């Protein structure tokens, strides 16, 4: 992997170069004070030293609401959607890992056409991150899962091209790079913490912490909305007056009681059941990704939870108890 040094003063020019590859989006702060990924018109809008956005970048791949198809006179048709080319700039490694997980889900067998079309038009540029108290990812400096990566060092950034598109960016920005000593081991610059893989049995354990969490959780679902790897969706159909109509899908939430409903019953009627359900799928995976942890340690769920539930509490206690 080729590495070059980008002086901090060259950042604005670098952003202009990135625009060659699509509409530039990056972390910014709204008038209401919310950190969010949004179009970056001027470099001053960029908050490159942000901690985390409220809504993760999954919104670029799985819009909150999306048309699956339309129908008319007995025929069903896919939407003729041509997603724009977008460069997502300054993604943290946890969010990149989140996208990599969604790729496993949506680009696997039976590739999801809407997701695939948007994914193909997305260029991902990552940046190293300074973890705060909420973070527990394992590698805040991982260059994996992106096209190009910037590691923050004194006075600027070390640029690495990861994919062919990253090489194209490197070529386009060649004039902006300067010669500098590139540290050999970048990983040591930003050490992570991480959470060990969990045992599926934990979900059914009688650990009193489950009940404690269930007693305070208000089923608001915020932790799942803001999770970069929560992807479950609902499908609805809306007829139009002309006899046709559309079928859409939109984000769903396993914290809502309706999620576990079946023929007149509910397999997860209590909050305790639903907490454990989400836990099982975050930390122990799902068919066909059983065994793969989809929690990337971004810390959003703890940061947004109105009652301060922190599952790490359970892992440390139960993890110790459960180990053989």
């Amino acid at each position, binding site marked *: 992997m080729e590495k070059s040094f980008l002086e901090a003063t060259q950042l604005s020019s670098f952003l202009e170069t990135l625009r060659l590859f699509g509409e530039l989006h990056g972390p910014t702060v709204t008038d209401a004070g919310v950190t969010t990924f949004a179009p970056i018109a001027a470099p001053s809008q960029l908050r490159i030293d942000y901690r985390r956005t409220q809504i993760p970048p999954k919104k670029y791949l799985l819009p909150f609401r999306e048309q699956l198809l339309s129908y008319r006179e007995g025929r069903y048709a896919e939407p003729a959607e041509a997603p724009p080319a977008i460069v997502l700039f300054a993604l943290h490694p946890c969010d990149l890992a989140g996208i990599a997980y969604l790729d496993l889900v949506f680009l696997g067998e039976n590739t*999801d*056409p809407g997701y695939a079309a948007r994914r193909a038009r997305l260029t991902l540029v990552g940046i190293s991150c300074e973890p705060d108290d909420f973070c527990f990812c394992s590698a805040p400096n991982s260059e994996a899962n992106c096209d190009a990566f910037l590691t923050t060092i004194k006075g600027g950034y070390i640029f690495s091209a990861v994919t062919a598109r990253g090489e194209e960016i490197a070529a386009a920005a060649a004039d902006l790079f300067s010669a500098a000593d590139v540290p050999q081991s970048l990983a040591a610059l930003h050490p992570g913490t991480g959470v060990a893989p969990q045992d599926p049995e934990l979900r*059914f354990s009688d650990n009193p912490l489950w009940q404690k969490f269930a007693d305070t959780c208000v089923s608001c679902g915020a932790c799942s909305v803001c999770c970069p790897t929560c992807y*479950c969706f609902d499908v609805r159909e809306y007829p139009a007056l002309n006899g046709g*109509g559309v079928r859409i899908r939109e984000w*769903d939430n396993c914290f809502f009681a309706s999620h576990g409903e079946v023929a007149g019953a509910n397999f997860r009627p209590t909050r305790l059941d639903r907490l454990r359900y989400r836990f099982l799928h975050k930390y122990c995976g799902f*068919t*066909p990704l059983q065994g793969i942890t989809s929690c990337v340690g971004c810390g959003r769920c703890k940061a947004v939870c109105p009652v301060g539930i922190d599952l790490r509490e359970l892992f440390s206690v139960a993890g110790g108890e459960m180990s053989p």
Partner: protein
Amino acid sequence: MSERVRDMHLPFAARLLERHELTEDTALFRIAPEEAALPQLSRFVPGQFVQISVPGAGEVPISPADLPGGDGALELCVRRVGHVTELLHQQLPGAPLGIRGPFGNGFPMEEMSDHPVLLLAGGLGIAPLRSLLMHLLRHRDRFGEITLMYGARQPKLMLFREEMAALAARGEMRLYLTVDFAPETNGIQSCAVGLLPDLLKGFRFDAPATYAAVCGPPPLYRCLIADLEQAGVAPGRIMLSLERRMRCGVGRCCHCAIGQKLCCVDGPVFRAGELKDIPEAL
């Protein structure tokens, strides 16, 4: 147009051919999918399901009541319970519908060959088991003894009653019917009064060799599994067809989760042994 992978969200067009009322709230629908759908639908294995679209209402998973006929037409036995099924019941022959599938795993037909098969159906559970039964009877020489035990709440709710009786009369299968209660006994014979597990209790069969296929309302499963195991049927040979709300049918929306499994791709047919440690399965 170039060869392109078909969007799995996109239903094939289909038309309602005819419908027969079976009971107050259940009807048999014959539907004809467009020709382009036939190669895919011809791969249907008993126990798999299709997603039926009713324009204006949405989609529901249905296990066809028989394999597609020579003309590709499918028979669906559907109970009117809610939003989509209600609108389906209002459709007249000729109405446009949609179909996706088949989805799910189906019964392991290869593995079951040469073995006796015991089918246990409760209520509407007869619908998916009927396609299994028809398949077994069409390939009668490939299977051991075939037995159908079918329980309904009362005689008038018993689906396919005449058809089943006629099939049994050909001597190719054993048939045991039971009703929870019989309000009027006007000439109804060959039908026990009691629950399905009661039928099983007095039944003598080669349990260790038998494959059992069970489909019915959730409470039925728990007691039947226990009884079957006690009779000597291995948990790996007790096949249960489970029902969940389904949206995508292809393992994405997570609505049909059963523990770490998804009903739409790992099921809907599960072995009792697989479900033992999943509290929310049954």
